[in-house]
């Protein structure tokens, strides 16, 4: 028995789409699990960062890629998770795990309330509203200094712990984060292929759906938009809580529009049609940034951070103009040679 790549590809072509999906997740999981064995602490912290971005982007992909809605305010949802976790653990001394769960519930509740009014409007106006809401969140956490520490932020947020391990331990945090990311990936993949996923794609006016056609087939578009927004918010909130308990310090600037724009960028580059796109996009963008931070100062003089912004912009424009569906469909095609029904 040989285990060449060709062999695996050959086998994936013979099995059903659902099995292929689990096989792909399995291979991905093994890859993720063995990375820390060979790498040092530094690549692990980068991978942890990719993990945070991946989870938020996965939520955004369900909102933007499945349902075709626009959000430029996901940083607020991410921040909501982080701040609620922080407040509950530092001021009410709750267990970080409970705080993570409660933050996800609360953020989901906010999303439900906001979504119910927000989705009475559609199209590009959502871009304006979500931008404003992101700004509102920023001003709110900067202003409520008694609760959130204001512009300085919150410190000493307790880490998540499991037995003797805490999330201050890089390796423990790595596995914790990626196990959660992979579980959420499985959830998203399953959902994409269920009646919920199909209903969401049917209302996706951005990528070939039609709201009117969906409505006359009995789909309550409002309900599905609100549900996918809640789900998206819960993903962002989980990532936010994990982030807060990992870094143990949070400040309002992290949750500004810049972050929202960055996850949109990741979703577009990775490929918004599939949750896999989140990992591709986040991995690519964080890697590019890391490379630029290390090597750009050797070549050009200037403040750090400027090349990465320019690179993001150029990548975004090039991908949108030449690969409007992002990278994932191309990779999928290369692996599966047009096998239908696999997502």
């Amino acid at each position, binding site marked *: 028995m040989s285990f060449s790549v060709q062999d695996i590809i050959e086998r994936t072509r013979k099995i059903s789409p659902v099995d292929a999906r689990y096989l792909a997740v399995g291979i991905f999981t093994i890859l993720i699990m063995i990375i820390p064995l060979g790498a040092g602490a530094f690549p692990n912290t980068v991978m942890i960062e990719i993990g945070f971005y991946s989870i938020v982007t996965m939520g955004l992909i369900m909102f933007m890629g499945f349902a*075709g809605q*626009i959000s*430029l305010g996901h940083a607020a949802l991410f921040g909501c998770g982080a701040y609620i976790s922080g407040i509950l653990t530092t001021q009410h001394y709750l267990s970080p795990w409970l705080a993570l769960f409660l933050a996800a519930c609360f953020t989901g509740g906010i999303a439900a309330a906001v979504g119910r*009014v*927000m989705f*009475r*409007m559609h*199209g*590009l*106006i959502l*871009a*304006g*509203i979500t*931008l*404003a*809401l*992101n*700004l*509102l969140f920023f*001003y*709110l956490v*900067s*202003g*409520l200094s008694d609760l959130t520490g204001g512009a300085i932020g919150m410190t000493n947020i307790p880490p998540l712990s499991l037995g003797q391990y805490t999330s201050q331990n890089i390796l423990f945090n790595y596995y914790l984060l990626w196990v959660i990311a992979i579980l959420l990936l499985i959830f998203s993949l399953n959902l994409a292929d269920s009646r919920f996923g199909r209903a969401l794609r049917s209302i996706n006016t*951005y990528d070939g759906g039609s709201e009117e056609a969906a409505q006359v087939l009995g789909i309550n578009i409002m309900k599905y938009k609100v549900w996918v927004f809640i789900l998206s918010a819960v993903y962002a909130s989980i990532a936010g809580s994990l982030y807060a308990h990992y870094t143990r310090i949070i400040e309002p600037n992290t949750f*500004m*529009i*810049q972050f929202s*724009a960055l996850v*949109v*960028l990741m979703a*577009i580059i990775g490929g918004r049609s599939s949750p896999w796109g989140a990992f591709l996009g986040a991995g690519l963008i964080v890697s590019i940034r890391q490379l630029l931070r290390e090597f750009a100062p050797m070549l050009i003089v*200037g*403040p750090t*951070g*400027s*090349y*990465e*912004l*320019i*690179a*993001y*912009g*150029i*990548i*975004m*424009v090039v991908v*949108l*103009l030449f690969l*409007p569906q992002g990278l994932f469909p191309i990779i999928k095609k290369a692996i599966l040679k047009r096998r239908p029904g696999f997502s």
Partner: protein
Amino acid sequence: MDYSIALQLFFSGLNLGSIYTALGLGFFVVYSVTRVLNLAQGEFVMLGGMLVVTFYTKGIPLVPSILLAVVITSLAGAGIYRFIIFPARKFPGMTKVFLTLGCAFIIQGIALHFWGWEFRSLAAFFDTPSIQICGATIFGQTPWVIGATLIMVAGLFVFFGHTIQGKALRACANEPLGARTVGISIERMALFSFALAAGIGAVVGALITPLTMTSYSMGLPLTAKGLLAAFVGGITRVEGVILGGLVYGMIESITAGLIPWGNHNVIALAILVGGLLIRRRGILLTAGKG
């Protein structure tokens, strides 16, 4: 005493309102011609402000500095249309929004490269001193802000309402096919609208630099505020943008004056977003169409 506070709030509201109006005008110009929501508009403002500061501190007098900044920013706007938006003109509106977001990243990166992380500021235009009226203090820059906004608004009114060029611009948005058949080049009009919006943005940048400091990262928040002002009033009409901008400015000024608790921004934004969510199509359009 109360009278002077009211007057003070009124002037600061007018000042803020003018800024938001002028911000909104940039979105209006691009949107009404091309139906593109230009998320790089705030970056034009930042770029304009930065350029003015640079030229002015190099010893060039103020007016030529502003003119130079406007010209350069307009060229940037035209370039963005020609090389990024134009190739995507057949793509869905959301793709174009994301393209302008990409442009915002690029402009931000360039600004960070040239001007670094520091905040830049300017003195009030021509060092105009503050004015005292009935106990209210008006900062020297305020008359310039209000005056320049008035001129821009009047210019746009005349332009869109009474010139052939302006009517052609509107025709592009309402009847693209019809506009083409009567010989209007939609592409040229769109190019012009991007340049015009960028120029307006640069003027706004110059106007606000003496009031708020300018830094490379202020573009996106400005985009958010300007867009909100434009949507609240109704982005498809000049009147809507003016109304939205003034309402936003007044609310922000009043909340800042009346609410002792530091963060008036939250209240003003919440009122605006709430208002927009309730009156879905903006104040003007809802009032007009019932």
